[in-house]
């Protein structure tokens, strides 16, 4: 069947070869744009659509086309969305003209021009980036374009506006009115500092009628130290920053992580050129003489990697954050959508694999080595004591076991320990162990049977009791011997003392163990206490640990143990507070390439991947990196004006944070599966301006905020809304329905007059007494602050490209009932002065940057009258209203 169709096509192909132009203009572009992300090398559904052969062979459901018969062709059924199973492409139906083109092409025999390139082998052979992949918009160089002509020449304030207005006019949309001064000031202040504008700032701006009044505001805000706290925090979202170890299985605090956080905040405040900002986070330790002036202070930037979790995390996070590419997807297979072969993944992995995390102390060498020496001593003392206690504890246990029968008999007879020459505590333990006959082993069953017979009033012969006790003891001693032999063999198998102590050097193997029921008896008699996998074992009858062993030791050994403990305490006390250091990285001693791991399995190595940059972002074959790990070369390749992504991605992030949506809405994915820019020329304009300004983030803020576009009101327009409900083309400003978590908490403190505006320093745990800005709060990786989390503070285990803005009822309960809001309400109420009307006015100025309307004053007065003048309750209502937590 298949052969038959193929031969038909070959024939018709010959006949209609003249139609190659039609194919190149009407067919190939449609396939490339809509289908190639899934149906080329990655062959989803087994279907490969980039060759005549592939399209005829079809996928798992058979040939994609029937040449000469469009209606019978799966491809046409799928794009028309009439096929039961296939409705393609998934991102939305094709234009009718595109479908018509495909139809005509199939109708006339489906000629695939011979010279249009061979198909790329699916999984074997050299990975080739096809011309149409290189032609993808995001990989094109940033173009410097003139701003477009617009009809309404009065509206634009700067070039940004011309791009926006041109796109609006093209769609018959028109921008709404500009925002009022109060709204604008409030919006700008929240945008740049995450704090509400003060009444004085509002008054100053309202009173300034000069044409540059708003420019002055923007400059003032950009100069504020609170600017870096706001924008630095957004960067920390991307950097998956926390005050702990990302790789640890439980919360492991890093007391020095905040130095990276403070470096980021400071970099924004000092407008560190973005290219240097990027380079420093990848390779501050390697930055050359050109940047030498600043290098020492940039070492903290390496926290970006050092606070991460190994090479895989580093490849993933660096490429998503700096390049908007999901290179992490290429770990186990060539990227399904973007031209990123698996080899490229391992090229980058090799770079990070050739680097290692290290600390850079901020203290003199002598202080550091002294600290480490004491730390080592403490560890050694601990091991020494542990070993001593274990050794003698085991001896005690073994000796006690030889009297097992005596203990049982004493328990039976109710003999006092002293009179039987036994240890009183051990006898007590036996008595309590024997209280419950339900055991996980059967070996005491004969004994419990005797006990039960006696309990029933039977006369149990003492001989029988003695014999049962003696048998049990023999069993225990034999078992102990068996266990000892196994332990010795396992000790060797696990790699000796070092292996036992250190999980990393332990050689995993299948160890010997007692038969399980025997093990339970052994455990019940001799094991130390442990908690594991839902078991909380309190310790064996004969087990005496560190706190209980002393009385069994002869004086000489007891004194030795005491002196070991005294010594440990002394050393522990002598340990000073740990010196300050920065989490950073350096090149490892022997940098080298890694091998591709086929299907992501380390046990399945493939070819070696040279350390070098991504092929799609290089001209031709990327040259291998040669300096050490290659991190600096990587940093330079990323932070380069010639890189088509770096400037675009950052300009887009800044745009997104000002407008709610990016020009590319998927801010961390500029690839095939990502969004396409709504205003591609504007994005290139912004990227160009960004680079030309010396990568100045503040300059970009300024240009954006001084545009008419930024200063639009949020006003509704029926006509615009009907055509562009999502406001993709920015005919108005987007209302922010809710401040993000930190701005919300900080604003509550600010309007209550209690915000502590100290900049920088060690993290502060969140509680009602913490009055610092939220960016300085402790970020735990495992137990996030519940209130911040409630308001969508990002999970620090992953890079977060965009805050979600949720609005569930649990959030409103926070406003209704939390002790935090109640407290700030009371403090706010206490701040308000004057008669009732002026207090209400003052509250509105503080919270909403406006004066109340008369009905609003009336609502307040009525409420106060009814509530017996409770200003705190009134203040809480004002804080709970949507106006407080939204930005218009």
């Amino acid at each position, binding site marked *: 069947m298949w052969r038959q169709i193929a031969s038909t096509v070959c024939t018709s192909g010959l006949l209609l070869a003249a139609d190659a132009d039609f194919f190149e203009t009407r067919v190939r572009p449609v396939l490339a744009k809509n289908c190639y992300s899934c149906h080329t090398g990655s062959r989803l559904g087994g279907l490969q659509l980039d060759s005549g052969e592939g399209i005829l062979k079809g996928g798992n459901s058979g040939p994609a086309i029937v040449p000469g018969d469009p209606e019978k062709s799966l491809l046409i059924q799928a794009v028309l969305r009439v096929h039961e199973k296939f409705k393609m492409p998934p991102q939305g139906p094709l234009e009718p003209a595109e479908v018509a083109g495909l139809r005509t092409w199939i109708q006339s025999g489906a000629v695939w021009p011979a010279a249009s390139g061979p198909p790329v082998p699916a999984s074997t052979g050299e990975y080739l980036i096809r011309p149409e992949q290189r032609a993808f918009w995001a990989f094109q160089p940033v173009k410097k374009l003139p701003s477009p002509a617009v009809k309404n020449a009065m509206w634009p304030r700067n070039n940004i506006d011309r791009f926006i207005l041109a796109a609006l006019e093209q769609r018959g949309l028109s921008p709404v009115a500009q925002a009022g001064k109060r709204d604008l000031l409030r919006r700008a202040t929240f945008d740049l500092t995450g704090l509400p504008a003060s009444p004085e700032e509002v008054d100053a701006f309202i009173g300034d009628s000069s044409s540059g009044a708003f420019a002055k505001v923007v400059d003032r805000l950009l100069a504020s130290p609170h600017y870096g706290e706001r924008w630095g925090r957004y960067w920390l979202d991307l950097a998956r920053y926390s005050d702990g170890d990302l790789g640890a299985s439980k919360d492991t605090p890093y007391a020095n992580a905040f130095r990276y956080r403070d470096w980021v905040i400071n970099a924004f405040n000092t407008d560190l050129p973005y290219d240097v900002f990027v380079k420093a986070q990848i390779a501050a330790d390697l930055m050359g003489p050109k940047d030498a002036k600043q290098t020492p202070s940039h070492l903290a930037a390496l926290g970006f990697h050092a606070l991460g979790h190994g090479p895989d995390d580093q490849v993933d996070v660096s490429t998503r954050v700096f390049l908007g590419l999901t290179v992490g997807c290429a770990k186990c297979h060539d990227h399904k959508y973007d031209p990123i072969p698996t080899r490229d993944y391992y090229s980058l992995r090799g770079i990070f694999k050739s680097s290692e995390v290290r600390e850079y102390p901020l203290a003199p060498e002598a202080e550091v080595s002294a600290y480490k020496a004491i730390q080592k001593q403490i560890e050694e003392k601990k091991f020494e004591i542990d070993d001593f206690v274990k050794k003698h504890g085991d001896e005690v246990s073994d000796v006690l076991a030889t009297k097992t029968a005596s203990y049982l008999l004493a328990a039976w007879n109710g003999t006092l320990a002293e009179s039987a020459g036994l240890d009183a505590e051990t006898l007590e333990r036996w008595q309590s162990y024997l209280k419950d006959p339900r055991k996980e082993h059967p070996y005491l069953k004969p004994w419990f049977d005797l006990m039960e017979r006696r309990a029933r009033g039977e006369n149990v012969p003492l001989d029988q009791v003695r014999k049962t006790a003696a048998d049990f003891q023999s069993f225990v001693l034999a078992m102990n011997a068996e266990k000892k032999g196994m332990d010795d063999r396992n000790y060797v198998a696990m790699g000796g003392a070092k292996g036992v102590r250190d999980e990393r050097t332990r050689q995993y193997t299948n160890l010997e163990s007692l038969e399980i029921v025997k093990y339970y008896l052994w455990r019940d008699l001799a094991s130390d206490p442990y908690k594991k996998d839902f078991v909380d074992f309190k310790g064996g009858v004969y087990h005496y640990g560190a706190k209980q062993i002393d009385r069994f030791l002869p004086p000489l050994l007891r004194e030795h143990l005491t002196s070991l403990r005294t010594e440990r305490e002394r050393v522990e006390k002598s340990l000073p507070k740990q010196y300050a250091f920065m989490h950073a990285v350096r090149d490892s001693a022997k940098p080298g390439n890694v091998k591709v791991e086929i299907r992501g399995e380390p046990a399945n190595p493939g070819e070696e991947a040279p350390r070098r940059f991504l092929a799609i972002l290089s001209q031709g074959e990327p040259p291998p990196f040669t300096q050490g790990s290659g991190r600096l070369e990587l940093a330079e390749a990323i932070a380069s004006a010639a890189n088509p992504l770096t400037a675009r991605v950052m300009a887009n992030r800044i745009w997104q944070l000002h407008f709610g949506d990016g020009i590319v809405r998927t801010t961390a994915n500029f690839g095939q599966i990502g969004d396409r820019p709504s205003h591609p020329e504007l994005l290139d304009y912004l990227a160009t301006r960004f680079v030309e300004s010396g990568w100045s983030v503040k300059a970009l803020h300024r240009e954006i905020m001084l545009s008419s576009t930024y200063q639009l009101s949020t006003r509704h327009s029926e006509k615009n809304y009907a055509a562009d409900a999502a406001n993709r083309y920015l005919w108005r400003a987007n209302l922010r329905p809710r401040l993000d978590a930190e701005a919300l908490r900080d604003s509550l403190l600010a309007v209550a007059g209690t915000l502590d505006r100290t900049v920088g320093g060690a993290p502060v745990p969140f509680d009602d007494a913490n009055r610092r800005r939220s960016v300085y709060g402790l970020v735990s990786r495992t137990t996030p602050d519940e209130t911040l989390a409630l308001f969508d503070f990002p999970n620090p285990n992953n890079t977060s490209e965009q805050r979600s803005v949720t609005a569930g009822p649990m959030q409103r309960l926070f406003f*209704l009932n939390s002790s935090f809001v109640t407290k700030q309400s009371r403090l706010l109420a206490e701040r308000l002065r004057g008669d009732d009307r002026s207090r209400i006015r003052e509250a509105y100025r503080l919270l909403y940057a406006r004066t109340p309307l008369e009905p609003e004053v009336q609502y307040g007065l009525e409420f106060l009258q009814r509530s017996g003048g*409770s200003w705190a309750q009134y203040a809480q209502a004002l804080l709970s209203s949507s106006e407080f937590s939204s930005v218009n």
Partner: protein
Amino acid sequence: MNRRELLRTAGAGFGMAGLSSLLGAASKTEAASGPLAVRTPHFPPKAKRVIFIFLNGGMSQVDTFDPKPMLAKHHGEPMPGPKIKTDRASGSLMRSPFEFRKRGQSGLEVSEIFPQLGARIDDLCVIRSMYSDNGNHGPSLLLMNSGHGLAGRPSMGSWITYGLGTENQNLPGFVALCPGYPVLGPQLWDSAFLPSSYQGAYIRNSEREPEKLVRNLRNKELTLAEQERQLNLVSKLNQSYLSQIGHQPQLEASIASMEVAFRMQMEAPDVLDITKESESTRARYGDSDFGRGCLMSLRLAERGVRMVQLYFGNFQPWDSHDDIRVHSKLAGAADGPIAALLDDLKARGLFKDTIVMIGSEFGRTPMIQNSGLERVGNGRDHNVPGYTMLLAGGGVKGGMAYGATDDFGFKAVENRVHPHDLHATILHLMGLDHKRLTYRYSGRDFRLTDVAGEVIQPIIA
């Protein structure tokens, strides 16, 4: 008059239409609009709600509901066939330390550690042929919850609430219960890119008092009358603000959530207060976190919450690497409360349209694990090629086993069921076509079942 009744009747005192209508709402299903409003399913459903009991950590199939005589026969021998890859070094085959017995009319064999579920086996559908993709807890938990092994996809409860809304507008549509947090925590009940109204509301069921179960549930300073007056004011302020800024649907939605919060204050303390149940009822569940969680799940389901997910315990209690015999303690803690829940769902007429899911992110190896990391050396490692999941109620056939693993219980070989298939089936029972329940995000239509999933028709009653 208790607080709840007082709040109900107090409705008349509120000036604003929005608040008074919500307070006066006699019927809980009277949700006119909004994200949680009840929506019509794609086709007539068999079930209306889901209770998912997650035995987190990995319940062993061969020690519970998938008996393997060959395992006992070949105890101590290496598993035949090519060397297989498990997470850590695995040893030889290990028989189950527990006895299996035929139970119920159906005669399905159940391990002695689940005596009460054994007695109710005729109500349970035992899927013995589950398989999954990744041997680690994190990815497997995400796959079982969200149909994808990486974070960032909405969980099943979010999808279901998105598809159907919820029957009680005074409570969240999707509730997740855990005494603390399971591995990965809130990611497991995340709505991801779906609107946050569909996120699981987390309740810490180790607490007893409703005010501690849900944070900020009660105002400690204001009397009821004071708060009523205050909310009335907030409502006026919001209306005034809205009239100044014009058409802003997002903000209107946020204001609406204030109303749900207010109603939650009335309803949540009551529904979460298990002392409202008789002493004999409570006794059947026991006073453990899990027992109380099962009883809360019942009460939440009864009040119309669309999906309840109950985690057995913090972190991953069922992760018996060390000693498989500990499964008897775990099962001992789970068996009674689940049985009580099934009984009460029946007694209250809810069983027929409530799907109860009982299971883990994966199973455990038929081989022993003893690699030096364990104390006891009698445990089993993670097993993704084959494991068991139980379903009951809402349109599911009881007393049947579906699918099978190989002779040793290692790999599903007959009627294999991937979590995608399970999800497709649950959605189907709820009246939703898993291929039509889509959400457009980041340029493409997403589904709970990604691009896979087949409804398991043979288990549908």
